[in-house]
Structures are given as structure tokens and as C-alpha cells.
């Protein structure tokens, strides 16, 4: 499909027309031009021992085949508290999925499968989440109300997720800009999907119910880079708290994106922050493209009189279509041709790299009508354009005009009515612009339709639980000392040019003061933070990250090196040795390294180097000779003289013969 589209003239022209620029070429001006706007929902599992509303252990994962029983459920929409049905809910109901849960004895109980009301909320998890609220400077609520958030996709057997707001209106500081936080909630994690085909979807319940926090930013991030920075920052705060679970899937983000004139679209479950920029870039331009489609369509025809027509094709006359279905192992009980008035050049209009508007329809056919892909061909496919006979015949069967486009869809008889409605619905939405959707991210930076974006309408008070009051003293007691300092410390780390990946370790273990003390001994800040954040972290890990790790000994080593006028480079060797043999007093470690404090006889060494350069032909190259020389002397030099300094000296003093 991708390659085909590249050959499609209309696809290429439409891409140019909307002024698409690739992610790598895009500048802040491009984002400003299309009015890029985004916000984040950062999910982070908490490392509590048990699940949120039952006493099953949290954090144990199973393979797909490791289960003891299956439960089947169907989901049906209910009314929200405000008395209306939620849009997503109705869509999901249309899809009529049979949902199977594979449950494992060790991680699921009768609560998980919604056969027992909830147990009291996990106090440990609640406390962890409140600590993080403090770190994010949120206004903490006086009473926690458990709310049900409907999910009809089956990802939660009850059909709703129990969730509660703990804080609202916070703020984070990215250094170059402050970003507002709307809220932080605590919620139970959902099931993991293992299969989705046709009308069947399978989940496993190991992750279900694990305590999770969701931090929501205001939609005020205006470039993909800002978006990523905010995601990194929130993830850092979560990690710094020491309360978050690490490992696969323990942290994921939902990214909300819109462009000027567009709609909020949620890219759901991005598990790596580094994917965020490209995904959000493509989404903003997808919306930009849909707005162009809207403009084109509305110029051609009024939405109010637009109506598609369709007819059933005699499958004997179209063996090629049956062939497509058959090749992919899909049922083809009925084939329908649809005429879309005034849709010429719309179906192959660019939406995302390698995707066109026809894909928008195809995605919905898969999700809503449960017709697996490939599920559509159009009069604008490149194959069709090259050999137009199929659609020439279709145009004879179904009345159409020059400016119309045609598509053919197929599938099980029982799904065809929903399929036709789905096509019609998506086409009408094209006149309105960008539909509110949740979209599934792909690793290559594009997204697929997942479902209609749910609104506040899907919230419902949890009638199985009572509000939990939070005493003022209790809230205050959870305020960690470091909370006041964390912004200052982070600004300082940035100022010190500390490697980004060292922030979490330093802040989480309260090592800022240690780092500061070492720097004041005269060491370079970048060097110190890197040693602490990498080498000491490594040794600490060997100790099992115990709280009573002897950080003071680390200080002593730095102090010894400073007091004895040794070169800082020796410190890396000391800690490499310590990692192997134990973190002892500096003297002992240096002894183990056979370190002797002495003055390097530079002239003797210079002569030796020159000699080598003369005698061995392959060392005639100046740079290689110097490297050889340093390699030879490194053992005795490190600690006594800076290797950088040595290299400079050797380079300037030796000459090529």
C-alpha cells in the first residue's frame, strides 16, 4: 500500500498542497503554521505490593499461554450520571465483540472478573500517589470519590475502570517554560489484549487492577519537542518519588494532539517517550490534511444533501474480489459497491505518510464492523488506475458521475449493514473535519483508528464504595522534605550539565547534597554527576539498592583524591575496582590497583615514543603513535597526570620523522 501510494499522483499532489513537511525537516515555524497543540496523560504504575481494590499481588506478569480459566463477557452501554449515553459506548456496542478473559490463579480473584464488589482501596498505593501529588504541586482534594469510567472495549471485565481524582491544578517547570497540570488520578490498570480478530477479542488479567496514576497536563505544549520534554519531566517526577514500578509497560503516555481548526485526538498507550515527537507530528498533519478535505468537499456539495448509494455485487462476476478475501483467509459472503458522490481525489488524499483517506474508512470497518483487513478497494487505488476494468464495470452497475468515487467492501453477511453505516458515517464526518478519536500508535510513527474518543459522559459514581476523607494532617504528613527543593535541584543539575539519565538516580536517592559537596572539592560538575549517576548507581545496584548504602565512603574517595593531588581520572578506576571487590577505604582500593603516586618522567617517555615512531612503520602516523604511547603509559599515568593533558603534550612535543 505504502509503495503504491508513492506512485499515486493525487496522493503526492495533496501532500504538497497542504504543505506537509517530514518530521526531520520540520521547524518550530511549521508547527506554528498549523497551530500544533498538545497535552499529555502520563500513566505510571505504583510499586505497591497489592492491587488497588483487591488483595491480589501486583506486578506479576504471565505469558499468553499461562492461564487457568476463561471467562466470557459482552459489554453494553449504560447511562452516565448526567443522563446521556457516551458516544464511544454506543460505538463499542455496535461492534458486538465477544470478550474472553484468560485468568491466572495467582493474579486474579473474583473481584478481577467482576464477581465480587471492591475491597477497600489499597492504602499503600493511595499514599504513594498522594506523595506524587505533592511533588507535582497539585491541590489535593479533601475527600476521594471513587468514580467509574466506562470502557466498553472489554479492557476491564466490569466494563468500567475505578478511578479517583487526588489533586487538581498543579504545575511543572521545564526550565524554559512552565506547564500546568489539570489533574492527577489514581486508577486500576486494565487488562492486556492478546488477540483481536473479527468479533473476538482476548485479554489476560495479570496487569488488571494494578495501581496506576495518571497525570494530565493542560493542552499547552506547542511543539513535539515540548511534548517530549514534558513527558520526560513527569516521568522523572514519578521516578524520583521512589514509588513507581519499573519495567515493561509500567509507564505509558496518552498524547492528545490537535492542529488549528482540528479536534482533540488521543494517541493511546505510547510506551516510549522517544516515539512521542514523530507520532504527534504526523497526527497534527493528518488533521491538517483532513481540514483540506473538509474544505474541498464543502465547496463541491452540501453535507445535508450528500448521500451515498450502494448495491450488492454478484460475486460470480467479481472473482478478483473473492480472491483478495480468500488469500487473506477472510469470509466474503457479500460484496457491496458504494458510490460516494463528489469524492473524486478524496479517497487517495494524503493523511499520513503512506496512508490516505481510504485508510480512514478501512480502519473503521475493522474496528466498528469487525471486518478484518484488507476490507476495501477504491476507484483511486493505484492498481485500479493502472487497470481500470473492474471499476469501469462497477460504474456501469451503480449510477455515478464523473466527480464521484467508488469503493467496494466485502465481509460476512451479518456485518455488512454496520459496514455500510460505518462508511457513510466516516464520509459525513469528512465534511465536518476531524473526528474525535483515540488512535493506536505504530512504531513507524503513524496511528490507526482505535475508537471514538470518550468524553466526560462516561463517568459514573461508584455505587459500591464510600468517599474516603483525607485529614488535613495526613495530607501534610505525606509532603516529602525534598519536594520543596526538587525544582531548585533540577535547575541546578541542568546548569551543571549533568547527563539527563543521571537525574532520576540522584534525586530519588537524595544525593544532591553529596554531589554538591564533591563538586566543592574542586571536581568538574559534569564529571561528578556522571560518576555518581552511572558508576555509583552500578555499584549500588550490586548492593540491591539498599537504603543504607555507604554514600559517605564515596565522598571519602573523592576527598582522598583531592587531598593527595591525584588526577580525577583515577576515580573511575577506583570505582571499577570497587564494583568488583567492594567499596573499601581509598587506600586499600588504590593498593589493589597497584597505584603508585609518582611524578611521570616525561622526557624519558618522549624519547621512547619517538623511537617507536621511527622503528615501526605502521606508527608513522602521528595520531596513532600518540595513542600507542598513551596506551603504554596509561596504567602508571592515570591518577598522576591527566590523560588529556598527556595527549596534548605528546602531540606537540613529538614530530614525525
Amino acid at each position, binding site marked *: 500500500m505504502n509503495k503504491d501510494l508513492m506512485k499515486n499522483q493525487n496522493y503526492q499532489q495533496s501532500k504538497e498542497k497542504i504543505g506537509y513537511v517530514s518530521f526531520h525537516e520540520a521547524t518550530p515555524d511549521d508547527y506554528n503554521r498549523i497551530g500544533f497543540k498538545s497535552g499529555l496523560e502520563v500513566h505510571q504504575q505504583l510499586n505497591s505490593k497489592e492491587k488497588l481494590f483487591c488483595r491480589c499481588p501486583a506486578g506479576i506478569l504471565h505469558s499468553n499461554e499461562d*492461564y487457568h480459566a*476463561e471467562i466470557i463477557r459482552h459489554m453494553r452501554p449504560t447511562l452516565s450520571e448526567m*443522563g446521556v449515553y457516551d458516544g464511544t459506548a454506543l460505538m463499542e456496542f455496535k461492534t458486538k465483540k465477544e470478550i474472553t478473559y484468560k485468568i491466572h490463579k495467582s493474579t486474579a480473584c*473474583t473481584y478481577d472478573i467482576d464477581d465480587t464488589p471492591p475491597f477497600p482501596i489499597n492504602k499503600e498505593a493511595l499514599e504513594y500517589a498522594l506523595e506524587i501529588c505533592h511533588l507535582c504541586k497539585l491541590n489535593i482534594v479533601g475527600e476521594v*470519590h471513587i468514580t467509574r469510567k466506562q470502557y466498553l472495549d472489554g479492557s476491564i471485565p466490569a466494563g468500567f475502570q475505578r478511578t479517583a481524582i487526588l489533586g487538581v491544578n498543579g504545575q511543572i517547570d521545564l526550565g524554559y517554560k512552565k506547564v500546568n497540570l489539570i489533574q492527577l488520578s489514581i486508577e486500576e490498570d486494565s487488562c492486556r489484549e492478546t488477540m483481536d480478530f473479527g468479533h473476538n477479542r482476548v485479554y489476560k488479567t495479570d496487569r488488571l487492577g494494578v495501581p496506576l496514576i495518571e497525570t494530565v497536563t493542560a493542552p499547552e505544549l506547542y511543539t513535539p519537542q515540548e511534548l517530549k520534554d514534558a513527558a520526560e519531566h513527569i516521568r522523572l517526577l514519578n521516578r524520583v518519588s521512589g514509588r513507581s514500578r519499573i519495567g515493561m509497560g509500567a509507564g505509558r503516555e496518552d498524547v492528545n494532539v490537535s492542529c488549528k481548526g482540528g479536534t482533540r485526538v488521543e494517541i493511546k498507550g505510547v510506551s516510549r517517550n522517544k516515539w512521542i515527537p514523530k507520532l504527534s507530528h504526523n497526527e497534527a498533519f493528518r488533521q491538517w490534511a483532513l481540514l483540506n478535505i473538509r474544505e474541498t468537499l464543502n465547496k463541491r456539495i452540501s453535507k445535508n444533501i450528500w448521500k451515498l448509494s450502494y448495491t450488492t455485487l454478484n460475486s460470480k462476476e467479481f472473482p478478483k474480489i473473492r480472491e483478495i478475501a480468500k488469500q487473506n483467509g477472510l469470509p466474503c459472503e457479500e460484496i457491496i459497491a458504494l458510490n460516494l458522490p463528489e469524492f473524486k481525489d478524496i479517497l487517495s488524499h494524503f493523511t499520513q505518510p503512506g496512508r490516505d483517506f481510504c485508510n480512514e474508512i478501512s480502519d473503521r470497518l475493522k474496528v466498528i464492523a469487525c471486518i478484518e483487513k484488507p476490507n476495501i478497494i477504491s476507484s483511486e487505488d493505484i492498481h485500479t488506475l493502472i487497470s481500470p476494468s473492474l471499476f469501469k464495470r462497477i460504474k456501469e452497475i451503480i449510477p455515478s458521475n464523473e466527480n464521484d468515487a467508488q469503493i467496494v467492501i466485502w465481509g460476512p453477511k451479518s456485518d455488512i449493514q454496520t459496514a455500510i453505516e460505518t462508511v457513510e458515517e466516516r464520509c459525513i464526518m469528512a465534511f465536518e473535519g476531524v473526528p474525535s478519536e483515540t488512535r493506536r500508535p505504530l512504531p513507524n510513527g503513524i496511528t490507526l483508528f482505535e475508537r471514538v474518543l470518550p468524553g466526560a459522559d462516561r*463517568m459514573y459514581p461508584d455505587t459500591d464504595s464510600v*468517599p474516603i476523607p483525607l485529614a488535613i494532617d495526613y495530607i501534610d504528613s505525606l509532603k516529602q522534605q525534598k519536594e520543596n527543593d526538587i525544582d531548585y535541584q533540577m535547575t541546578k543539575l541542568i546548569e551543571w550539565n549533568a547527563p539527563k539519565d543521571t537525574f532520576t538516580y540522584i534525586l530519588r536517592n537524595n544525593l544532591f547534597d553529596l554531589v554538591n559537596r564533591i563538586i566543592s572539592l574542586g571536581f568538574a560538575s559534569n564529571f561528578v554527576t556522571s560518576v555518581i549517576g552511572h558508576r555509583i548507581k552500578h555499584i549500588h545496584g550490586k548492593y540491591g539498592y539498599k537504603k543504607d548504602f555507604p554514600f559517605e565512603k564515596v565522598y571519602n574517595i573523592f576527598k582522598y583524591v583531592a587531598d593527595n593531588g591525584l588526577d580525577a581520572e583515577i576515580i573511575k578506576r577506583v570505582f571499577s575496582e570497587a564494583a568488583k571487590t567492594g567499596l573499601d577505604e581509598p587506600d586499600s582500593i588504590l593498593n589493589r590497583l597497584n597505584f603508585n603516586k609518582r611524578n611521570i618522567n616525561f622526557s624519558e617517555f618522549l624519547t621512547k615514543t619517538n623511537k617507536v615512531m621511527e622503528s615501526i612503520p605502521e606508527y608513522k602516523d602521528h595520531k596513532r603513535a600518540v595513542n600507542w604511547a598513551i596506551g603504554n603509559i596509561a596504567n602508571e599515568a592515570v591518577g598522576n597526570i591527566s590523560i588529556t593533558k598527556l595527549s596534548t603534550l605528546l602531540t606537540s612535543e613529538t614530530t614525525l620523522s
Partner: protein
Amino acid sequence: MNSENTQGYKGESLKIFEKYNCRVWGKVEITTTRGQFIGTLLPRSENDNDQHLVLKIDTGYNIGINISTITEIRELGYYKANYKIPEKKFPYSDNKPNVKLFGTGGTIASRLDYRTGAVIPAFSPGELYGAVPELADICNIETEKLFSVFSENMGPEQYVILAKAIKDEIEKGVDGIIIGHGTDTLHHTAAALTFMIQNPPIPIVLVGSQRSSDRPSSDAALNLIHAAYTAAYSDIAEVMVCMFGPTSDEYGFLHPGTRVRKMHSSYRSTFRTIGDTPLATINKDIGIKKIKTDRKVRRDDKNVTCTPVFNEKVTMVYYYPGMQGDVIDSLVECGYKGIVFVGTGLGHVNKSIYSAIERAQKKDIVMYMTLQTIWGYVNMFVYDTGRDLMKMGIVPAGNMLPETAYIKLGWALGQTNDTEKIKDIMLTPVNDEITPREPYDGYLVYQGGVSEIDDFIKNFRK
């Protein structure tokens, strides 16, 4: 202040409403020492404390604000929610059976109550169609709300009204009857109706739901669909309970009204036929698959025997080892005419209450023995204790379930005070409340952890 505007608030929190002149359903901006909160003020559950206001914030979540932190409240707007299922007229079709649905309350028809914050029965049965449109594919349904009570509030008074209403419907020629009912005492009502409505020409189906219909995964819709199918098409014409078979959305069971019991507080698959097999399974795609083939079948006539009586001076005594005789004495003193004992083992109570039992016998109290073991027969010949008790007038009730025996004794005493006649009524089964034999598969309580059981569960679902 208008109580509508402060719904559910009391004490200290009520004073806040007065102080800042705000109202429930008002969109407000609340300034507190913990920062600012914006949202809609919601009613509060009456059982909750008077220290917090409930706010629905824009993202749809509810939060509570500690009133001692509030420094200012400003109303920005007002929107009152109207919680209502879209009520649609049930489509009528000439070629479909006519089914009558009686509503009694319970979670098959429920909604949220702001007063208690809990689920209350409030959907009119007509609204059920708005929620479960598939019903129209099965039959024509006419609905009538008889009561609006929780299951535990269903009692003799309601049984009588219900029985009379059923009789009237049968005589009008309806093809089947559904009774929506809370699950806690569903089996009591099923027993009562079995005795009060005998030889009905049509199926009478009681149905409920274990997970309230306010949740997406509720069993209410599927139970209702199964019940409608049964009422419309079942060949078995008796009082039945229709509830989930396994906990999965797969099939329902039709249980005989006198042998069914709720066995788990929250599982969907809570109702089980005790000491026998269910009558049939029901699945909307496959239809009704009979397990028992010897039942009374549907007829074309409109004849039915209705005996809607009940003497409420009947009680149940669940025996425990330290029981004292004064428990029995006080029941007699209070004027109870019948006692159903729920005894240990084969049907025993200890000697310390013998004299009290004798005193009861002298006052012509009728006494029957049933079992705490739930499964099995009372047998009072095996041990001396049993023989002693029979001498004192306690009649063994075979394998009648304790709840069924209680209902039947109330119904019998509603007809006569003659001890012998009562005994005759009690021991002559109306519809299998006592069975002559217990099939080997009437008692199946497997234990997990055993490999063959684990295999069974994995392969056949629960």
C-alpha cells in the same frame, strides 16, 4: 433554604450553603487553602459526613472538598442533570407471543440514588426496553410495575398480590409471565408462587441480576433476554427461576421454583438447583435445551389454581450448639404457630431445648425439621435424638430446602390450623419440593486445586 438546593447536605456542610449562598447543580468556583477547584456541586449521600462538599469537575470526575479549607464559593452557572433511560414504546408484532413483565424492584431494574449514593430500583419496566432493545425480537412485552422494593423487602404481602396478578394475566390469555425481582430472596418468592399458583398453563419466570444494570458488564440484559425467550417459547409450564449458568455470558439455567437457592453473595452464577439438576439450559441462539423431560407442559386453556394465602406467624430457627430453650419459649409466647428448624447433620438439635420443644407441642405449634447441610434428606431414625424429637412432634421435611419449608408452612397455615391437614399439605409435594430420590449428580460441589478439576475449569469455563 430550599432543600432541593442542598440535597443530602446536613450539619456543618449545610451551613456552607447558607454562608456562600450556593446550590446543588450550580457550577461553582471554590477557593480553598489547598487551591482553587471548579466544578458542579452535586447532591451528597445522606449517610456521608457533614465535612465535605461533592464537586463534579469538568473532566467528569467527582471530588470532595473539606469545608474547613473553604474561603470562598462563587456560582458561575447552573445545570440540573436529568437521569433517564430513553423510554421507547415497545414495538408490537402480531406473530409474536405476548409476554407480561411484572416489575417488583431489585437490580434488574435500577438506577442511581443521590440520597444514598447507592443503586435503587427505579426504572419502569417500560424503560427496560430502552436499555435492552433485543427483547423486541423475541416477543411482545407488556409491563406493569407492581412494587418498587428491594429483594429483602419482598414478603408475604407481596406474594399474595403477585399471585393474584399472575392469575388475572393467565385468565386474560397471556403466553408467558416474567417477574423482575431482586436476587436475595428470589428463591423465596419462587417457592411461594409455586404453591400459590398451581397447574399454570404457561411458564412463569422469575429473573434478576447479580450485577446492577447500571454497569456495562451487567448480567441483567442477558438474564432478561433468556427470561423473555423462556416465557414466550418454553414448553415447560411452571414457576421457574432463570439466571446465569456459568459466570460467563454463555447460557442461563431454568431452575424449579422450589429447589433453587442463592449460593454466593456476588457471583453471577449464584443460583443453583439443590439436590437435583436444573430443568433446562437457555441460550438465545440455541434456545431451550431440556435437562428434565418429565415436567408439566404448556396448555392452551386459561385454567389455574390460585391459593393466595399466607400466615405470617411462621418462623425459622437455625440451630447452633449453645442454643437455650428460651429461644423457643419466646417464639411461642409471641404467638408463632409454626416453626421450621434448620438442624444439624441428619436433622438434630440438642437436649437442652427438648423441654421447650415439648412446651411448644402442647400449645399445638407445628414444627418441621430441615437441614443446615442444604443437600440431603432429613433422617431422624438413625440416631436416638431424632426419634426423641419426632416424639415431641417435630416432623422431618425430607429434602425440602429450609427456605422452601418456611414458605410452604406459612402457606399451609394460611389454609388451616389442623395439624394433620398441615402435615398432609407439607409432605405432599406440589412441585418437587420433596423428591423421592436424589440423583447422583444432584450434589456437585467440586474443590479447586485438584488437577482434574483444574483441567475441567480450563477447558469448559466457569
